[in-house]
């Protein structure tokens, strides 16, 4: 007797309703027909509904049983659905909106005395702290190289302009000396979030375009490694490398558009029998680039183009190869091999090409620069990159090298190998002179509605620690009384 009683303790309270009571509630009442499509006919002169227990009352008999058979909802009231009148956006429209780059704004005031960028503007230390407008033709070129980002503050101004900061002048001078000495500048731009890393790359591209370099840009490294573009193994490679034809085609088109004037002056020195279309020797590189019409031939054309650019010759221009989002190529990619093993980013041919130049395995014979910018916002964790960059920084500063953690297993030796000998430029906050130049530009554009004096500059500079993005947030995204 005691055992069933104690077992009963384990039952849920809802299940513990004595069977007699539950049965009583369920006793078919004379007022209710067991099954009927018509309402139950009670005795005349009585109100059956009041006395008869509804089946609902016995709901706790079985857990999860729903006598009504309807889907239970925790919501008290149903949300009234608004009438759908608007047409839903077409496929791709939302993405186009998201990626839209607006470089001008008719409502912004024109800035008096804003100088246009000239080939030597960014070399001159006197220009530190001034703004320089990007010329119209260059805007198109930079746009095709995807140098502008949607997160930047271009739509607030009448004309795109950049601040020339000390790091800009430093970098451009290094680029210039590398080009003149036919050397390769291998540099990684690093720094905290919104310190202007991508914009420094944009400035270097602007410099390259104005000084007749051939500029190649990988605007987002994650597009190459997050398995969002097609890939295929390259035949006869060991270890197997993978080409990304669609991306290659897009890149060749960008190169062609941005560097049309330079490429049309250079002629080919090799015959390229592997190309889908016959490109005779001494035809322009532009014609060679135009040979890429289908994704299938894109990788071959790109290789041919690269081979021509890598040919040492007096008439060959320096090359600028930039990449934004370095941590994305410093790890194992999201692609899978036919054996369903993850492919290392360095096994993707395009990434490998960039890494080889960055690591110094291949040098640019006509001089040039290879720049990579780290990203902090949407970046995968890459301990090897962090460590390698910290070590390079320490080397440059002449301090003790940070050591790898001996028992940490997340390091990636292939990535570390790439960054063994690069130089590092760490971006920090602006100086007050630069901050003042920027704020004066904002005030002249009619966005910053106050007098730009040293006091205002110091206040905003202190709030943002001089970090450019933070200064924009403090000044442009805040309501001022």
């Amino acid at each position, binding site marked *: 007797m005691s055992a069933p009683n104690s077992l009963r303790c384990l039952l849920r309270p809802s299940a513990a309703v004595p069977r007699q009571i539950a049965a009583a509630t369920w006793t078919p009442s004379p007022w209710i027909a067991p099954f009927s499509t018509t309402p139950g006919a009670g005795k005349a002169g009585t109100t059956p509904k009041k006395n008869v227990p509804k089946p609902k009352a016995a709901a706790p008999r079985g857990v999860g049983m729903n006598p009504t058979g309807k889907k239970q909802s925790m919501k008290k009231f149903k949300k009234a659905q608004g009438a759908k009148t608007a047409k839903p956006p077409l496929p791709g429209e939302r993405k186009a909106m998201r990626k839209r780059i607006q470089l001008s704004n008719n409502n912004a005031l024109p800035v008096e005395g804003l100088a246009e960028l000239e080939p030597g503007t960014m070399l001159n230390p006197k220009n530190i702290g001034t703004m320089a407008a990007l010329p119209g033709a260059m805007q198109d070129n930079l746009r095709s190289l995807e140098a502008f980002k949607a997160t930047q503050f271009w739509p607030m101004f*009448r004309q795109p302009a950049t601040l020339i900061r000390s790091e800009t002048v430093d970098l451009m001078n290094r680029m210039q000396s590398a080009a003149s000495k036919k050397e390769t500048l291998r540099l990684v731009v690093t720094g905290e979030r919104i310190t202007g890393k991508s914009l420094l790359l944009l400035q270097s591209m602007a410099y390259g375009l104005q000084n007749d370099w051939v500029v190649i840009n990988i605007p987002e490294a994650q597009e190459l490694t997050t398995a969002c573009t097609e890939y295929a193994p390259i035949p006869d490679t060991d270890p197997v490398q993978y080409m990304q034809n669609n991306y290659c085609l897009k890149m060749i088109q960008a190169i062609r558009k941005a560097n049309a004037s330079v490429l049309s002056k250079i002629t080919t020195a090799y015959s390229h029998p592997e190309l889908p279309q016959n490109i005779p020797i001494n035809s322009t590189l532009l014609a060679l680039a135009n040979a890429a019409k289908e994704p299938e031939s894109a990788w071959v054309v790109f290789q041919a183009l690269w081979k021509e650019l890598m040919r040492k010759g007096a008439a060959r221009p320096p090359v600028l190869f930039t990449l934004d989002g370095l941590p994305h190529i410093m790890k194992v990619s999201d692609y899978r091999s036919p054996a369903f093993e993850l492919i290392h980013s360095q096994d993707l041919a395009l990434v490998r090409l960039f890494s080889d130049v960055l690591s110094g395995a291949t040098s640019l014979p006509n001089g040039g620069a290879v720049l990579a910018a780290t990203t902090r916002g949407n970046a995968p964790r890459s301990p090897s990159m962090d460590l390698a960059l910290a070590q390079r920084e320490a080397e440059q500063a002449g301090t003790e090298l940070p050591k790898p953690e001996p028992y940490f297993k997340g390091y990636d030796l292939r990535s570390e190998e790439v960054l063994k000998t690069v130089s590092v430029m760490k971006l920090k906050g602006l100086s007050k002179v630069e901050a003042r130049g920027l704020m004066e530009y904002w005030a002249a554009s009619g966005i910053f509605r*106050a007098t*730009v004096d040293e006091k205002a500059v110091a206040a905003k500079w202190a709030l943002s620690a001089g970090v450019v993005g933070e200064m924009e947030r403090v000044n442009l995204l805040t309501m001022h009384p």
Partner: protein
Amino acid sequence: MATTANSLRLCVRARNQISGLKNAPLQSALTRRALSTTPAKWAEKGTSGDAGDAGPTKFYDTTGDVLKDLAKVSKRQGRAANRMLEKWDQLPAEEVAKLDKLTKEVIQETAAIRRPTKVSKTAFWNEAEPDTDLITDEVGEDDFEENDMTSMAHGKLEEHREYREYARIAVWEMPLLAKFAKPFQPPKSDEVLRFRYTTYMGELHPADKKVVVEFSPADFKDLTDIQRLKLKKLAGARYNPEKDIIKMSCEQFEHQAQNKRYLGDLVKDMITAAKDPTDTFEDIPLDLRHHRVKVKHKFPKEWLLTEERKKELEAERKRAFLIDENKKLSGGLIDGVKRIQELQGSEAVHERVPVPSLMAGQSRKDGRARR
């Protein structure tokens, strides 16, 4: 009432002891065979009188009878009994009569106790049998008879007593402890182990056997750097890199001294192992994953407002003021609000921004897609 009964009972027990004495010759009779088929032949039949026949249930009426009987038992006891009998005979008659009367009374009163109790056959485990060893029956002992304080008051009183006891100790005994005070002497260079013991002030506690030892590998002067590093590696997670201290504890043995001895031996073994040149562990990096350094932020020295810093700031403000004044004079000071007001009616504002060719193409494409 109960007390008289008890004393009586004790007296009776004492008497029974005496009656037991008279059984002694029977027990010591080695002549009696343990097992026999022939009837036993007693050497001196009837000499022991009625003492042997009466058995343990025989009772004497007077003390004199007892002594007379005792004198017959054995030589040694007989001698003592005879002496006592002589003294007994010298007693005055009234005394003897009084004592005999008392004896009779005792026998009469204790008769009820001596009577064997009948245990009913149906009783379970002889529950009804009285326990003769029970001193009190504990019935009605806890009844409050309105002649005492409440138990709470007793508790309070006890508390006061305790306070006063410790107050006495504090005033009278504690000052005497100062005699045992020793001046602190920092450990010498060869005293590298630091032990920690735990006491709970005389109370028993499971943790009072625990002993902790701390030492720094840097204190072992006879070790080389490699050997010290090996010592740290041997210590594993017991090594604290921030303090450069190895800390170990032991509570596996029952006594403090045993635990301390174990730790001492362990340190000795570790040093011996560290000195062992066969494997210096140089290929194994020191594992510090167990220790996380907690960064404590301090107020930066550079931010302190020293006199120099004040001067510096003053100069900075002066410089800033001059810059602004110069700009004001040259008309280079830019005011956002003024700028908007100036340009409000001008043509430059209404001029459209020329659209670059690439953008124009894009917008046309977009427009077509939308249509």
